[in-house]
């Protein structure tokens, strides 16, 4: 069989720039498939406050203003590129939303739905003519309602969450699960380890040749070097010693157990932004590309598959 090239990335967190770079990378490097490991949605919303006919916003501590339409468009683009949602409002409305969390969530929902829908259209527009499919899963930070948007899949955009998909004419099987183990933040898709293990076993057991399976799971395997994050105390504060941050593995033990037992060809993961890398667990090559979405930097991996094995791989960023 000929070479099958995957371009993989994860954790865009609503960064418009990073998502557009990702699509571009797929085209530039002539991928046969684009794969995304979850956490598509953003974490924050910037109020664009209307004051005396102009707009004000604070982005990363810097106060910015826009007076003309062009400036407003540029400001919106800047906000989108760092992974925030922008919402125009008056100072009174800003105060209102600050005091009403439920209504605030509705603003987030509107922003997430609008952006995700547009992203899928953009992907369709650029990938379909080249016949490149986009496979994706949600991540633990993605609200449950995004399933509805991702569920409107076409032939070129497929939500792989809790599914098995044949790749390269059936030579490989892509198995997806868009969750993480439980985090201190109690995110929408935090699952107990037992549930993750059960789900993964149910997904993998019917696969006829696990050695050609590609496991796409948002959370990386426990203590794999792909899951090292700052240790937190009960107040969610980072733990220090001697001025240094204490680090600890925070990945999923269930994912590790399943990988060690089933030994798929490839494990594609995200979730822990500060722990990118490539690690072998037995014969399985596990990948976490990390994330620098706030800086507008795409972190991705090119993985070449050939004759049922990983022929080569390379991290890319730009």
């Amino acid at each position, binding site marked *: 069989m000929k070479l099958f090239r995957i371009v993989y990335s994860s954790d865009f967190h609503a960064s418009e720039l990073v998502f557009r770079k990702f699509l571009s990378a797929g085209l530039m490097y002539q991928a046969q498939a684009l794969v995304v490991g979850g956490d598509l949605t953003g974490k924050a919303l910037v109020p664009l406050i209307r004051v005396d006919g102009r707009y004000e916003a604070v982005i990363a501590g810097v106060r910015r203003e826009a007076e003309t339409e062009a400036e407003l468009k540029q400001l919106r683009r800047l906000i989108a590129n760092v992974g925030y949602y922008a919402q125009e409002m008056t100072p009174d409305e800003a105060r209102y939303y600050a005091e009403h969390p439920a209504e605030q969530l509705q603003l987030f929902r509107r922003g997430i739905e609008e952006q995700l829908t547009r992203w899928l259209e953009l992907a369709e527009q650029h990938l379909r003519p080249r016949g490149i499919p986009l496979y994706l899963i949600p991540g633990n930070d993605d609200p449950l309602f995004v399933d509805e948007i991702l569920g409107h899949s076409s032939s070129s955009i497929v939500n792989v969450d809790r599914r098995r998909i044949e790749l390269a004419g059936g030579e490989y099987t892509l198995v997806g699960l868009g969750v993480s183990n439980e985090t201190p933040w109690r*995110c929408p898709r935090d699952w107990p380890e037992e549930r993750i293990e059960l789900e993964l076993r149910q997904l993998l057991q019917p696969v006829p040749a696990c050695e050609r399976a590609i496991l796409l799971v948002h959370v990386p395997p426990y203590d794999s070097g792909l899951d090292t994050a700052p240790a937190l105390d009960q107040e969610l504060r980072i733990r220090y010693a*001697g001025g240094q941050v204490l680090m600890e593995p925070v990945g999923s033990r269930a994912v590790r157990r399943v990988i060690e037992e089933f030994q798929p060809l490839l494990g594609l993961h995200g979730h822990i932004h500060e722990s990118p890398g490539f690690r072998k667990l037995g014969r399985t090559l596990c990948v976490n590309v990390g994330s620098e979405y706030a800086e507008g930097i795409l972190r991705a991996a090119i993985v070449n598959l050939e004759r049922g094995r990983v022929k080569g791989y390379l991290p890319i960023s730009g």
Partner: protein
Amino acid sequence: MSATQRLFVRQSSGLVRTISAFGAMVFGVHCISLSSSGLIPFSWVASVWPGASIIGVLTVAMILGLFHAYTYASIGAAMPRSGADYVLASRILNPTLAFGASWVLALFSGVVAGGLIAWIPGTALPTLLRTIGILFDNQTATDLATWSASPTGILVIGTACVLLTWATMLLPTQTIVRILEVGFFLGLAAWAVIYFALATASGPEAFQSAWDRFMGAGSFASRIDLALQAGMEYSPNVAIMTLAGLIMGFWIYYGYYIPTFFAGEVKEAHRNLLIGAWSALIITWLIFSAADLLLERLVPLEWIAAEGYLYNNTDTFAMPWITFYASILRPNVLVVGLITIGWVYTLINLAQTYFFYTSRIIFSWAFDRIIPSGIAYVHPRVASPVVAVTLIAILAEIGVLDAATRGILATQLHFVFFAVITQIVPVLAITLLPFLKPDLFETAPRIVRAKLGSLPVVTLIGAITLVYLGWMILASFLFPAVGGGIGRGTILTFLLIFLIGIAVHVASRLYRLRREGVDLAWTFREIPPV
């Protein structure tokens, strides 16, 4: 605006980067070294430029360091990841050139770690043992000092210290952190003891009498005459002080910027790298300057210069060490013991910081797949990069051997020359960033994209840093007493190591392309958004 909410945040995970500004400062201070660099102003600077104000030299050197620190903090902020200097230069200028420069820096840093370790038996231990020998009339300590400084002593003790550093770097990160923490406070405690001894001396007569008690009657009064007879030219003027400061920056303060090499682990790198580097510079400047103020209360600058001159240029027995000056004023076991422990311990810490940052540079090569990823293997139980650390230990042992035999590398003396040349590449990259990669420049953190009028600050300060680096290279030739005498052998050594680096990069690229179907150049290629 202030009355309204500036940002709405929903419940989501909040994993963040790691090392704080304080952590970056601790690393910087350890890499500058409270021990080895603490001796330089009094034993070396004063003797090479007799008459130059020590505080003046420290200040000029520190101010130049602030510019250099800003440049390196910008490099780390622009590319906040392991080996930020290499990563930036490879993306902005040329990957092969960037790797060649990074290769030289990392290899030589490993060897210099050994050179610095050799300082323990070569200088630190003999100084401290001689102090004990003189103070307590202990011939065994004096004999041990002589043996320690011999080639055999350097090799034996140096190798033991390399093994100790290697072993500690294999420990879990939390343990290493505690070792560094203890070192930081031990170093400060040693300086506190020195301050106490100097500050509680009643005046110049007390120092003179203490000196004569241990070094022989009339010894104090004879030092200046002896140095003048030996050729010392005492010239207290501002021009010489400034010149010395312009040259000594790296010799005294090298290391304040090393968190840039592990910028990927620094929390809010755009802020904390600069705070950490500047704090490290200012804190060490304060520590050394305060010591000088206290010392010059007791002895004139000319006498300090003379003692250093005698040590560096004659066979006269001399002890130009601030630790010795403090010890003779308070000749008790506790004072000498605390200083000795603090000095040796922080020298090991110094080597540890070299091991740490060099391993991060190696990580960045492995992450770009230029070298086998196995070299960046992190042991699952101790979570330490065992292969990289072992390789660095081998390089460090070469450094110890070199120091013991005074071989061709003469690492300590030539390191500034090597380090400065390799730094030109990343500094040039950040200087030209606004023009070569305007998109990256526009989206970079504020420290990088700040402008003075229409001129990017990184370009302005980068240019100043480049001039400074150029001057450092020139000074290595103009002042062989400082630069170690850069001869043909040194330059050929540099070129050879650099060319090997280039060859490694080219060979690796060809291998990946043919065997794996991936081109390493893709790693560095700009990806325009659709």
